[in-house]
């Protein structure tokens, strides 16, 4: 099973220490400077009026970056839109690493106001054609995701929980790592 179009979301640690609308300005600067390698950034979408919604997004051609509020949980989100070459493990690594880089950049923009979890993140395959939310997808994808995560995190001490049995949802897992990870180390991989 070739997994593509990962979404990775690293949860915020505790309540947000800033007005999320402030992120709009930062994302505009990213677009102006085209400061994400290998991604053409186009625009900023501010969707804070929608409850438990996608928050604020820096929209790109190849990927989106967001301070996201889906499910009522704040977090930094990376969404891969185009096809990435390589293996499934490469793509899991890309998702987590890029999310970590985005988290670090946001933390730098708001020193002290933004803290991200060092144990919890989500991975979603944003494509129901490839991976419908079924037990079969789970059985096929989880071993690969686990082995990729062992490589990225450098240990196997984590637990995967399937998001939802709801077939209408996307296939996704929440990962809880028993050992805290360093964003900087993930981002620099």
């Amino acid at each position: 099973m070739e997994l593509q179009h990962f979404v990775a979301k690293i949860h915020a640690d505790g309540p947000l220490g800033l007005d999320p609308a402030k992120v709009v300005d930062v994302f505009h600067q990213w677009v102006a400077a085209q400061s994400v390698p290998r991604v053409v950034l186009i625009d900023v979408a501010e969707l804070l009026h929608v409850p438990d919604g996608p928050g604020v997004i820096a929209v790109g051609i190849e990927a989106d970056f967001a301070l996201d509020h889906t499910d009522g949980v704040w977090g930094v989100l990376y969404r891969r839109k185009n096809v990435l070459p390589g293996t499934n493990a490469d793509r899991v690594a890309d998702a987590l690493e890029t999310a970590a880089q985005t988290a670090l950049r946001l933390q730098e923009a708001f020193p002290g106001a933004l803290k991200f979890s060092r144990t919890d993140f989500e991975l979603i395959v944003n494509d129901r054609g490839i991976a419908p939310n079924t037990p079969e997808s789970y059985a096929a994808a989880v071993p690969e995701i686990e082995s990729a995560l062992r490589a990225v995190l450098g240990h196997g001490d984590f637990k995967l929980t399937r998001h939802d049995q709801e077939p209408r949802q996307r296939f996704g897992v929440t990962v809880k790592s028993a050992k805290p990870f360093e964003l900087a180390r993930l981002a620099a991989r």
Partner: protein
Amino acid sequence: MKASHVIWKERLRDQIPGPLGAEVDQFESEIVLRQQGKIDEKVFAETRLRRGAYGQRYDNGHRYDGTESRQLPFADKPTKGPGTMWDAPGMLRIKVPFGGLNPRQLEVMAELAEEYSDGIAHVTTRQDFQLHFIHIENGPSIMRRLAAVGITTREACGNAVRNVTACPLAGVCHDEAFDVTPYSHALAWFLMGHPDTMEFGRKFKPAFSGCAQHACGLAQMHDIGFVAAVREVDGRLQRGFKIVVGGGLGPVPRQARTLTEFAPVEEMLPLTQAVCRVFGKHGEKKNRNAARIKFLVDKWGIEKFREEVFTVRKELRPDPRWTDMLKDAEQAAEGPLHPPGELPAVNGDEKLRAWIKGNVRDQRQAGYVTAAVTLPLGDITADQLRALADAVAKYTRGTIRTTVEQNFLIRWVSKSDVAALFADLAAVQLAQPGASSVVDVTACPGTDTCKLGISSSRGLGGELRNRLVQKSYQLDEAIKALHIKVSGCFNSCGDHHVADIGFYGVSRTVNGYKVPHFQVLLGGQWENNAGSYGLPIIAIPSKRAPDAVDRITEYYVKHRTKEERFFAFVKRVGKGPIRDLLEPLNQNLPSHDVEPGLYSDWGDPRQYSIGDIGIGECAGEVVSRYQFEMTSAERLVFEAGLFLDAGNVQLAGETAYRAFLQSAKGLVQVQYDDVSNDPDEIIAEFKERFFDTQLFFDPFVGPKFANFLFAAHAGKGEQFTADTAHHRIAEAQLFIEAVHNCYNKLRSTPAPTAAKA
């Protein structure tokens, strides 16, 4: 493009109704042809628009960053249309005739918003859905997934018949003559792709109302409006419509004129077809700004227009669908899932009380209500859509409607289910009260995504909504009843002409800087079927617009006579005093140093500029029916080649034959509109008009190319080999060239070629 493209194509192959599937396959081929530079960019732009794929801000490759306009680093590829970068994300408009949807369709909308867009589905001011930030190459997958649940994006944009809207209360309203739902449904599908709608110089918007007095259907402000009426003939009640034409908003709004006071329902489709033919033939093509049907009605006067329409009506070739499509109209009606009931006791639940008061209305049918689901700025998340789908399935027979106020309306809710429905909606924060009230602000996309946006209509709309919701408990009932509508520019996609307080975006220079402003409009009316249009009184800086609302509403509450409605109030006091009230808001503006925020727009911290305004695609490209027919023919030849490559020789040969017919038809229709798709008729007409007259003869080879056509037709049903299929394809290509030559000869001025080949 998404990796699942092929998966959807295979998986949905058998689930898509034939014509909708063919439509998507065609678009997919056209994308490939355009990538190879084989379709002209204008033709591609118009076919793309006709499939609902619109441009979006910054797609010309420029973006202002707060200091200067910079080039976005798009890859160098063929364009999607003049000045439109291939990889630039665009908007996809999804047609929802009469706003009617079922739970499965809501779920699919949720899936598409998550997988291809920004997680939001947007309800428009014409009951459509829009997805933003869509990559053109994902279009076919999205369209297939929609088609599999009976939805199309066809002709959602471009110079075509746009979504057919209808009053969302149709079928349950106290005041309606009859339920217009089946008629609006029939009209939408009858006109879709109809040859008589192919040559419009501009868009054409139909709307249905169940009655003459209320705004819900907005028939008066449409290119063609149908108002239900019943008359008695020989003691029998007969259904029909008052038909009005030439209304519309846009920069200069018009009220529609009456085409006929009463057309029996059987005449609805043929008369509309005749209107389309007259508009297609005589409507302005060159000057976009005078190309809507309202200008033709103005130019001719309604009497001449009417006469022409009725003359053309008599000449139309009879079409069984005129009546077939209405066969079950009188029986077709939505009904309830649960038995009727009584409203719940509210027992101090303030939220439930406010929701019932603001959003729940009695239906004509005792024991049932409609419930409005208000969406902030028309936006809804995927999770909310799924929860809504569940509620619709749980409390109704599986139907819901979008509204032109960018909300949903659930109908046929038993009164005894009201509390449970409220709880289910509240669980996903879809139970905001205040539907159709002052907090329920309507806004067009504006500078968020629209290429023509001047000011941030959604930014202002959101800000007004926030402020008004916070104050809503103290607001006077008279203020709560007002309607506010905001457009990002004068084009009025946010319906600002028909609001109590309307706004549209303009820009002004202040202290050497550009400053976003809004014109304030008063005197418009949502009631009385959008009975009057507002006029601008003064332009206010964008950031001061909420203050303008405060001043106007305070003044109104203070000076109104008892029960005086806002429209009557403005009429009585005059616009002068209100203008005086607002004037201080645009005078002595603080300098950039003192208040930099004034020099940027709502929700956008960049220093304001109008440099991002692009060329809108609202007018589409004027592409003649001939060009369309020929583009299809070129596409068929291309597809035939693909089939041959894939070893499917039979299909290759047959497709080449279809290309012959298609191009012959393209030529025939230049002289004869009514030519059908019947191969024998096409050949006979071609022979009589172009072969017997020798018009088609080539200066060097005479009848050779025409004979290819006759041979292909004579061989209909033959078994192909790889060789014969190959020949047929090559001949079809030559025949198409000959058609172009003949057409060019007829036109003396060279015709724009459909493809560069």
